[in-house]
């Protein structure tokens, strides 16, 4: 009996020894869908990683892998990261959802955080940002600024997040400019400078003088810069190198506070699986400086929208709103619920394009 206890104790000691060793430094892993130098989506996630390092110094070690394809490869990368002793892993693209869930099931002691997905587990949290709040501000500016009344929109994939952005931008452009028309090109990529530039040029040729993008590179802005009178917006990152024009403002994803808070929770042992969807109010969605290329009154209105959303006084999806098929969606004064927004698969009335399927 005693001997068995001793054996058990030894086994425990070894087990804990290993764990204690790993806990010397909290290891935080990041899996990126693009290169960290994309200047957009992945760049901002990497800024968040650097913020974690700056905040905790020697108490944490961060590792990352860039340009990881979404699919079977992601599962292997995640497994290897977990095997290497990571305590917390952020998977920063929608396509990592199933791999994250699969690997999390194999490593119950490792915490996972999946961006923009909808599947959770005891050790998997999800987080995303209400980018559509920023789109409302951009839509307002786009509606006021366009002279041709054609707004070009470079969309990535027809998923709810992107459709939400299109709807939010359209609603607010239409509000200030009833003649506005949206032309949408689906690039089927998050990051492909050549494709994005092609899309931007095609939209400009079709008469668009405002280009909005839901892809991550600066290529659309570079294309807009070449044509007089065409403006665009920074996406995911400030893209200030194109200010004051064509980049007149931007949506900035600021993941740093969230990453720091979640890392702290792991260090303190208080981490729990949560679903986070923050916007302008917490600073997860930032609006880049509105440049002087925008008239002062338009700028003031845009900032007022931003402040109203941030204060919770205004919701970008407030009725009366109809769906593109003519059916009623929101009654006067009614506000969209998060469930509908999370699964949004329809355009609002007035967008003449079709969602590809």
């Amino acid at each position, binding site marked *: 009996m005693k001997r068995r206890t001793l054996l058990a104790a030894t086994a425990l000691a070894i087990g804990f020894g290993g764990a204690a060793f790993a806990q010397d430094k909290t290891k935080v892993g990041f899996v990126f869908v693009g290169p960290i130098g994309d200047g957009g989506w992945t760049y901002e996630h990497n800024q968040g990683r650097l913020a974690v390092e700056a905040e905790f110094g020697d108490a944490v070690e961060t590792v*990352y892998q860039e340009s990881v394809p979404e*699919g*079977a490869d992601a599962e*292997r990368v995640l497994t290897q*990261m977990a095997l290497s002793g990571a305590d917390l892993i952020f998977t920063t693209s*929608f*396509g990592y959802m199933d791999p994250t869930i699969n690997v999390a099931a194999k490593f119950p002691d490792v915490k996972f955080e999946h961006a923009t997905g909808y599947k959770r587990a005891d050790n998997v949290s999800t987080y995303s940002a209400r980018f559509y709040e920023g789109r409302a501000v951009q839509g307002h500016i786009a509606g006021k600024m366009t002279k041709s009344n054609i707004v070009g929109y470079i969309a990535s*994939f027809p998923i*709810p997040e992107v459709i939400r952005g299109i709807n939010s931008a359209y609603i607010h452009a239409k509000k200030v400019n009833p003649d506005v028309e949206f032309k949408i090109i689906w690039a089927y990529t998050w990051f492909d400078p050549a494709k994005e530039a092609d899309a931007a040029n095609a939209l400009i040729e079709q008469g668009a003088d405002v280009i909005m993008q839901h892809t991550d590179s600066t290529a659309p802005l570079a294309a807009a810069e070449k044509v007089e009178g065409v403006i665009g917006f920074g996406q995911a990152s400030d893209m200030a190198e194109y200010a004051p024009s064509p980049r007149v403002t931007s949506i900035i994803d600021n993941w740093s506070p969230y990453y720091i808070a979640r890392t702290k929770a792991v260090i303190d042992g208080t981490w729990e699986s949560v679903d986070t969807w923050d916007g302008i109010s917490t600073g997860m969605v930032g609006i880049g400086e509105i440049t002087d290329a925008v008239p002062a009154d338009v700028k003031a209105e845009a900032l007022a929208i931003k402040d109203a959303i941030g204060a919770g006084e205004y919701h970008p999806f407030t009725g009366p709103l109809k769906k593109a098929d003519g059916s009623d969606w929101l009654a006067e004064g009614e506000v969209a619920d998060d469930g509908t927004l999370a699964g949004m698969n329809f355009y609002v009335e007035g967008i003449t394009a079709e969602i*590809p399927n």
Partner: protein
Amino acid sequence: MIRLEKRPTPSRFWMAATPLLAVALTMIAGGLLFAALGKDPFEAIRTIFWDPLFNEQFASYSRPQLLVKAGPLILIAIGLSLGFRAGIWNIGAEGQYIIGALCGAGVGLAFYPAEAWYIFPLMVIAGALGGWAWAMIPALLKTHFRTNEILVSLLLVYVAEQLLASMALGAMRNPEGGGFPGSRNLQQYPAASNPELIAGTGMHWGVVAAFIAVIFAYILLNRHMLGFQIRLTGESPRAARFAGVNPTALTLFCMGTSGALAGLAGLFEVSGPAGQISIDFNQNYGFTAIIVAFLGRLHPIGILLAGLLMALTYIGGELAQFMLGLPAAAIQAFQGMLLFFLLGVDVLTNFRIRFGRSEVA
């Protein structure tokens, strides 16, 4: 002075030795690259080539993964090598891989949620047929209208990619997926899934099929009349015609076989490691397999080894990225070097290096 002297016949020794030399040169040049990036080159090379196989922290997981990654590469490369040997250039294996996956997954999803033993075999047949049919387009255009199969097969890749996107967003979209693109996960549908056959080995039906393909290709090329015709056509098309080889039949056979094998690879991938049809399901296996085929000297055993080596650089490269913080681009450059050196040292097979002054004849 160094000069090259043509060998009367290609050197058998160098034919076998150049791949090894190319790997060695890649390690040296790669080491210099890593050193220039401020990383310890020995540690980097060790992480890429040694750790996935023998590091006790990772090896038990990454060794089986080697088979998972190499399986489709080998399966596709074997098919391609048959055509390449006969001078028939199927560059569009990527497209055939996609169509195979779509057809196979389509059959599986059509049966959902039925449970029956025959579903998976039907999917396998559909996958092979899909890849075969997609390869038949450039093959028939070549035999009937003398179009260039390189261009047609390559351009059909982009058509296949569009079809894939449309399927992932439309017909095959998971109705319970909350509006997100991508099909149901076949891993969670037992009758249609291609699981690991023996836990912890990485062996799934695709890997089994790859091994079988290696054996069959070896027998075909060395023991069979058709194999002889393939080799003869590649070495001397005129002689082949005199020997009674039917070029039309050979083109159809080589294109069809490579298409079917690529389709199978796609089917095994979508029902196994990948699990679902998604917009970017294809991972360039079809293109990488071209490198594998040449790295393996278009020889079945060579392809087997080359596929494993290529998989090793992928898996080791991933480890090196997050263990040592090497950028992804450095790993890709490293893989590119491998092909570059392979083609570069190829000259040794056909030429002899002579030092000193040239002799006056």
